């Protein structure tokens, strides 16, 4: 237990440090100390508080949510390849978002609602997809793991068709907005959109932490866990709906950020072992810090221009995943 506690403290420290570094670095050079202590309220203050702070927070929340949801789903499916995208949440959210990008201009929206239109419709997309996944798997597959995975794959394919149709009917401008939305960015964070999204993410992720023991039992096998007194169906429902809500809120505001949900839990298990009591909190912190770091790279590498954050996470995450596979199987 003790090394785990140390590691947790180290991780919390590292996350804080990275967040502070991310706050103080960017295309505009500014001194964090001067602004915080000197009460600077000029352009630098605006950049720090209105542009950089919501962005770093969003990156942190999203990273934590994606990693925890990934860890919980990997535990639930007892499959190291599970991640939020697998059960169709991300593509459902993407479908909701693109329908708003394409159809939005033709629906007259009041200015206040227009700010929320995109995240809200992405959220609705994620929820509808999850409800469908649940209903279909219960009706035709007794909510078994394999059925859920297969239905998830089918849902992803269906959502891709929907996205393709919208891409086909959309005009040039909408198409390009969509392309960049799909590649993910935390640059769209403002306090107005961050706060409701963050509230949803927290509300979705917190219940998952109370399911740690159930997830541990489930590793013995579904039948064994059942005989040990675990309500397996309830656990599945909770994990799926909570991850969907949290990931939906994240995708809704920042687009699709790849590989965090897949790689971070593996990284944590490598060091701390498979117990969810260790994996979940550590995944949250590691996910937050790595995502903040990826966003920092995305916005500073080619400053004053910036690259989509998913390019950074995937470029690092995919080779790392290959390394994990190679490492696990010599020859």
């Amino acid at each position, binding site marked *: 237990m003790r090394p785990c506690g140390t590691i947790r403290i180290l991780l919390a420290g590292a996350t804080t440090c990275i967040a502070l570094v991310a706050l103080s670095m*960017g*295309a*505009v*050079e500014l001194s964090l100390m001067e602004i915080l202590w000197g009460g600077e309220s000029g*352009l630098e203050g*605006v*950049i720090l508080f*209105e*542009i*950089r702070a919501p962005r770093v927070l969003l990156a942190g929340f999203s990273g934590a949510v994606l990693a925890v949801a990934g860890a919980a789903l990997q535990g639930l499916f007892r499959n190291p390849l599970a991640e939020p995208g697998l059960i169709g949440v991300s593509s459902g959210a993407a479908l909701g978002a693109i329908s708003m990008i394409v159809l939005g201009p033709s629906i007259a929206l009041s200015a206040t609602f227009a700010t929320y239109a995109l995240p809200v419709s992405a959220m609705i997309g994620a929820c509808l997809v999850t409800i469908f996944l649940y209903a279909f798997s219960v009706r035709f597959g007794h909510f078994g793991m394999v059925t859920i995975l297969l239905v998830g794959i089918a849902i992803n394919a269906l959502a891709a068709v929907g996205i393709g149709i919208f891409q*086909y*009917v*959309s*005009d*040039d*401008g909408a*198409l*390009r*907005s969509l392309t*960049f939305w799909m590649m993910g*960015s935390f*640059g*769209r964070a*403002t306090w107005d*959109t961050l706060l409701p999204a963050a509230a949803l993410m927290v509300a979705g992720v917190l219940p998952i932490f109370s399911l740690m023991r159930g997830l541990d039992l489930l590793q013995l096998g579904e039948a064994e866990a059942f005989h040990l007194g675990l309500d397996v169906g309830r656990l599945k429902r909770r994990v799926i709906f909570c991850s969907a809500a949290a990931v939906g809120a994240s995708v809704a505001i920042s687009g699709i950020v790849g590989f965090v949900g897949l790689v971070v839990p593996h990284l944590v298990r490598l060091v701390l072992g498979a117990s969810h009591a260790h994996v979940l909190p550590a995944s949250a912190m590691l996910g937050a810090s790595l995502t903040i770091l990826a966003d920092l790279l995305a*916005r500073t590498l*080619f*400053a*004053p*221009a*910036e690259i*989509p954050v998913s390019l950074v996470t995937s470029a690092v995450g995919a080779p790392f995943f290959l390394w994990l596979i190679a490492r696990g199987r010599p020859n």
Partner: protein
Amino acid sequence: MAKRFLALVGLLAASFSAAEDLCEARPDASRIAVAGGSITEILYFLGAEAQIVGVDTTSTFPSAAREFPSIGYVRNLSAEGLLSISPKLVLGEEDMGPPNVVAQIAKTGMPIISIPEVRSAIGILDKVRCVAAILGLSQRADALIAEQLISLVDELATPRLHAQPSPRIALLLDTNGGSLVAAGQDTAGNGIIEMAGARNMFSNFSGWKPVSVEAILNGAPEFVVVSTMSSRGDASTPPHLRASPLGDRLIAMDAMVLLGFGPRTLGAALQLARTFRGLEVQNAANRE
């Protein structure tokens, strides 16, 4: 009826005054960040390039403009990146974005203006005048327009220039060997076809859409205009069209000249009109 007419006039007046507000002199235009190739082109046209401090990735003309720090793609700007080059003014195309980033920039008190675009010859002059007004260079702009652009606009307006009946044209994007993408209604491609006095063959859909070679051949356009990137010239026209009966009716033109709707687009429209009329040898078109 009269009431409705009055309301319409009122509405028009209101929209005009809104445009006027947009295109009025700004107190400090000494450091300008530009998001949009045609705006950069206009700043050079006005001789105001010394005021530029950064441009987006579509600002490729004149080639000297590529030397400025890049603020990224016009529709994918970065709020902080843009502010880091400390402009006093941001000028952009109508489609600059994403909207939240534009809103973030505006929130810092930075004047950020998207120049209205109407895809016609007069629209181009208005764009030049609008940018000039913002910079306080209206007089210089009027002189330059009178000297260099008015003759082009006038010539474009002469009926004698245009082939009768107006030819059917298809305008395609150079997709580098991928599927063919044609300009429908409400596109810059449609705008230039109409400026050149021709009819868009694909007026039955709006936006840019993929089309098949068969659909193009079946529609029997008199010419096919291909918007190309860089200077790959005729090599960038789609190979299956080059081999088709339309092969000698392909016109390749630089994308920013053709679709940017900066000052150069007037010359491009004129050249197309002459080609359609048979007054000019085809394919002399691809030039910077």
